[in-house]
């Protein structure tokens, strides 16, 4: 009798706990709903609509006709000759895709080569001055990308600061044609995205225990060996994070190649825009956007995998 009563009470109380838990979940869902609604309307929802559009037929003056078609996806990779209907690889698209991947990769490497020593420099400053250096990196990080690209445009143009300076000291006789080249885009993207490399590497180095370096030297390692065998392996998560943070926006860059590439040297972002402007092929634009998204997702999956692998050996 007594035991039954206890069991009944226990059951009732577990139900009570369950009720409290459900209330918490309901409260959490209510709290997140407004943000999720906005994000669904203006972030994830549009992607779904775009997916649908990539299977429609382009309208004559932009927009779409509501007729199903896989033509857009076909056009991403293949080209049909308008005179004899022969199918060939879409050279123009693939060369733009290749340029995007190549320039993004080079940007990432350049950002690392310059950014790693800079992050290291900041992390090894005394605590008081460290904030100052960090602040110098943070400022450009939060300033307008358009303005910074415009600043690069001004200094590399024919009558810009660099050419004027080189002409004045007599290194060159005629201005260097730097603007509207792949190099200009590369320089511009490196300039614009380098804070995204420095900050995560710095974050890793800040947590790095420099007594490990002392231990390395104590065990007869040279500076280069210490760098290669101790520092770099331990801050790998920061390096990977920085690389992905630079690579992804570079791949989808639109403003920088538009301003510094001058309409000749297109990247994926510009190719996509073209389909919604002069090209008037919205389904192709949608398919190209989704292709870009797919590449980014692959890069992200690669990032998560290597971050897990890099993190597996350590506590963090």
């Amino acid at each position, binding site marked *: 009798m007594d035991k039954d009563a206890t069991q009944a009470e226990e059951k009732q109380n577990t139900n009570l706990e369950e009720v409290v*838990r459900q209330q918490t979940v309901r*409260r959490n*869902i*209510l*709290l*997140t709903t*407004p*943000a*999720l609604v*906005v*994000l*669904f309307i*203006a*972030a*994830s929802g*549009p*992607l779904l*609509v775009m997916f649908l559009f990539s299977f429609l037929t382009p309208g004559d003056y932009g927009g779409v006709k509501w007729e199903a078609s896989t033509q857009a996806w076909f056009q991403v990779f293949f080209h049909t000759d308008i005179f004899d209907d022969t199918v060939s690889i879409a050279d123009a698209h693939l060369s733009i895709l290749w340029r995007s991947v190549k320039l993004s990769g080079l940007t990432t490497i350049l950002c690392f*080569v*310059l950014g790693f*020593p*800079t992050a*290291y*420099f900041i992390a*090894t400053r005394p605590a008081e001055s460290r904030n100052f250096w960090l*602040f*110098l*990196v*943070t400022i*450009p990080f*939060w*300033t*307008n990308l*358009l*303005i910074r690209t*415009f*600043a690069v*445009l*001004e*200094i590399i143009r024919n009558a810009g*600061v660099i050419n004027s300076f080189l002409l004045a000291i007599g290194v060159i006789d005629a201005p260097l044609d730097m603007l509207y080249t792949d190099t200009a885009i590369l320089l511009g993207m490196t*300039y614009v995205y*380098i*804070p995204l490399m420095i900050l995560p590497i710095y974050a890793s180095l800040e947590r790095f225990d*420099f007594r490990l*370096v*002392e231990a390395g030297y104590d065990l007869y390692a040279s500076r280069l060996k210490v*760098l290669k065998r101790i520092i770099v392996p331990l801050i790998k998560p920061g390096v990977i994070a920085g690389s992905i943070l630079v690579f992804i*926006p570079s*791949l*989808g860059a*639109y403003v920088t190649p538009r*301003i510094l590439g001058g309409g000749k040297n297109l990247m*994926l972002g510009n190719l996509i825009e073209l389909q*919604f402007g002069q090209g008037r092929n919205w389904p192709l634009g*949608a398919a190209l*956007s*989704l292709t870009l*998204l797919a590449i*980014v997702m692959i890069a992200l999956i690669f990032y998560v995998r290597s971050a897990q692998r890099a993190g597996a050996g350590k506590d963090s």
Partner: protein
Amino acid sequence: MYAVRSGPVLVKIANMMFKQKFSVTRMPGFSVVAMICFFALYMPLAPLVIYSFNEGNNIALWEGFSLRWYGSAWENELVQGAAIRSLIIASFASVFATIFATMAALGTTRTKPYRGQMTIYAMINQPLMVPEIVTAVALLILFALIKQATNYHGFAYLIIAHTAFCIPFAYLPIKARLEGMDNTLEIAAADLYARPFKTFRRITLPLLLPGIFAGAMLAFVISLDDVVITEFVKSAGQDTLPTYMLGQLRRAITPEINAISTVLLGVSVLLVTLIFFMSRKRGN
């Protein structure tokens, strides 16, 4: 006698002068690269700012100091309109994004994991992961459909688009603040007879405020600086300052652009400096 004694001292001084002391953290060449990097980060901004004060029409030929381009930008009705639109959109978007992000942070932090939490994280962080151009054309497609159906071409599209991509920027500092908060403070408040709403108002909210403030300012800066999404979402005559400037870059560039850039640059630097020092001060 004196010479003998001072001998070792001289050796020490010589060592200090000519041989660098062994330092555990030093890596040869790194400081040089870092200095080049800092120089390169700021050097391009100098001509931009300097030529905004140029007397002449050229952005490469110095003709004397003048505020004429600031005056001309100030009186340019297109610039005025764009500036006002930029401010309106940034204000609305940052306020909405901050409110929603604060709620979302309260609903996703310091709670037992529940089903769908990963989806919520993915959705909140989507604007950070998906390239802006992709979101921009997706919004163009969706809003074109809605514009066609409703014939409404107003500001709401821009405000909702900006709110969406500002949410993760507002969310991150608020979430970080919440995670760093001591749980027992709220338990202590409940122990001292504070009902849940009072606990929120008197303890949680005041402690969260620096995070909310930082989040709001970041959202404001991000909205103010946006080019790509605005460029694709805006209807005719809805230029913001950045899209106005992007349009102008196609034409002959006058120092007016430099003047506008310098002002925008100033606003960003001011806000970021504020956030930076506030978060440092509160962090200690």
